[in-house]
């Protein structure tokens, strides 16, 4: 069976398990629903798949007030009204198709090559959004009400759906998806991720930074734990500082906490703990 196999991208460190899951979802042509803490690379995965398999990536950022039809297509009434008044465009006012534009899902459907469609943070929208989407997922087609045309997917896109699980997704929706929960990477994995981002990084800094990072994550009562993104930015900050570039000093002192902790309560808590560390 010929199948494009996905095995990770330049800046994306993939564990075997997830690679398997992506491949099986592509083979089954089922959407893959990803859950997990922020910063575990849910969104990055779609980018990585598109990059490796050389497929176009189409991103639908779900907003709270979004209706599904906006993601399918838009009928631009106003331009048509404007054209019919002034008539100075090269569009044919009597042709309704000239004023129909595809939304993100529509674009993925009419795309000539198989596309990766990332539906980011689906849980943000009302539950109607998912309910309406069931049909589209099942049939891989939708109607354009204005022209009574049916848009069929030329090639079934690779659906990657992410959710931060603020709300539960509905059962019928879950039934149509494959599911994976991305756990927060363990220190070993994290070192791989770091070295993918900073190939030149010296060992001692990487070790110490990762160690300090996991210690900070363990502080109790932190509201928003620092994630991969924060760690990468933090290392960037450390590299810019000649004092810390070599990493040894991290055992004594932890600078730039503001890069890691974004909530003032968290910041203070972390600061007081790392201050204690300095003296004892």
């Amino acid at each position, binding site marked *: *069976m010929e*199948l494009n196999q996905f095995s990770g991208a330049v800046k994306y460190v993939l564990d075997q*398990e997830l690679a*398997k*899951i992506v*491949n*099986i*979802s592509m*083979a*089954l042509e*089922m959407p*893959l*629903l990803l*859950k997990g803490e922020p910063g575990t690379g849910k969104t990055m995965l779609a980018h990585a798949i598109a990059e490796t398999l050389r497929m176009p990536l189409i991103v639908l950022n779900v907003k709270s*007030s979004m209706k599904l039809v906006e993601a399918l297509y838009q009928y631009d*009434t*106003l331009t048509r*009204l*404007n054209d019919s*008044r002034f008539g100075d465009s090269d569009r044919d006012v009597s042709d309704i198709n000239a004023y129909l534009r595809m939304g993100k899902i529509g674009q993925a459907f009419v795309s000539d090559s198989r596309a990766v469609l990332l539906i980011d943070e689906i849980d943000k929208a009302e*539950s109607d959004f998912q309910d309406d989407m069931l049909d589209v997922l099942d049939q891989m087609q939708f109607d354009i009400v204005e022209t009574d045309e049916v848009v069929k997917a030329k090639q079934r896109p690779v659906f990657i759906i992410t959710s931060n699980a603020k*709300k*539960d997704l*509905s*059962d019928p929706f*879950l*039934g149509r*998806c*494959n*599911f*994976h*929960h991305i756990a927060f990477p363990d220190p070993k994995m994290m070192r791989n991720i770091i070295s993918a981002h900073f190939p030149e990084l010296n060992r001692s800094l990487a070790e110490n930074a990762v160690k300090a990072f996991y210690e900070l994550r363990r502080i109790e009562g932190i509201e928003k734990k620092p994630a991969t993104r924060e760690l990468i930015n933090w290392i960037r900050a450390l590299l810019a500082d000649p004092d810390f570039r070599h990493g040894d000093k991290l055992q004594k002192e932890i600078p730039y906490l503001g890069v890691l902790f974004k909530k003032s309560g968290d910041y203070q808590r972390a600061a007081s703990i790392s201050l204690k560390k300095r003296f004892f």
Partner: protein
Amino acid sequence: MFIDFFFKLREVSIPVNPTSFLTLQKAINSGLVGSLDDFYIVARTVLVKSEKYFDLYDQVFAHVFQGTALPETDDPAFDFLADTLLQEWLQDPKSIADGFGVDEEKLRAMSSEELIDYFKERLKEQQGRHDGGSKWIGTGGTSPVGHSGFHPGGMRVGGQSGNKSAVQVAAERRYRDYSTEGPLTQNSIGEALKRLRNLVPRGAKDQINIDASIYQTMKNGGEIELVFDRGIVDRLKIILAIDNGGWSMEPYVHIVQTLFTYAKSQFKDLKTYFFHNTIYDYLWEDPGRYSSPVKIDEFSRLDPDTRLIIVGDASMAPYELMAADGSIYAMERSGKPSIESLRFLSETFDHSIWLNPTPRRNWGYTRTISVIENIFPMFELSLDGLENGVSRLMS
């Protein structure tokens, strides 16, 4: 073997549906599954739809494919009970040791985990014989442990609850976190709740009203005039207060769970609080009613348009409602009868209802129900009742 696996998963109550099982078959036929490891990953991604069940899945997988023993599904009641015993042990080691008929020193030597395990072990031996008699655990007997009328910390656990008297108080699941379990079973509840919406135009006028624009344009003889509207948003705020205490609510756990799950996914601005039997000075944000109390006086600062929904059986001993210090919890001494607090709430929020899971035909038998009915409009927690309740809230 796969069929067996499938049913095992269902047995440990992982919601697996047959369609996804067919999908799994398809996946196996696709040629991508080459080893048991592959199968493990693929089956999980296809069958299990929530990380809540990952751990359970692992155990079942190991059992079916490697023959390890299936974990005993621990009854949460045991966990709770063992925990209670531990608390009690900390308060009064001697009576516990005597109760077990073992040396106090022997128990002292154990760590808290060991103690919990030990208690559980002993509890299991006792399964099925909880009431009466002189067994070391039971109710109303001569037993030193169990329902001796006092909770660790000197609080009273027992008490009358309408028609049902407190049996098995010690073995009682005192509370349940309604949010963690409960599959969405009754879609109809969601339907009924859908009508709870208060759509109001709000914010800047930034949305074009196409119909009105075309109409105006035509009126102007083709000169375009754009008409803008405010966007419409749902501003409904809801407070849901749930009675999750004790035995009298236990039969209705299922239905309240369903309601709760729907409410949680449906409403943007939903605050959930918990109480036991009735409300005094505080409501609790945590299901355990322990760590985060909220003074109900604070509620007067909230938007009076907030909809208040109280769910409870409203069945208790009359003094709990009427007496100044009626609470069955010793810590909860407000000096104000609960009925005053309830009145305060119903006056604060114009739109409030009480949903009662007990059937309406039984309401007449419980005095406290009719008292509360005079304060809050009360509806049966059934589909009909819910619908009536919702229309009352929206009126």
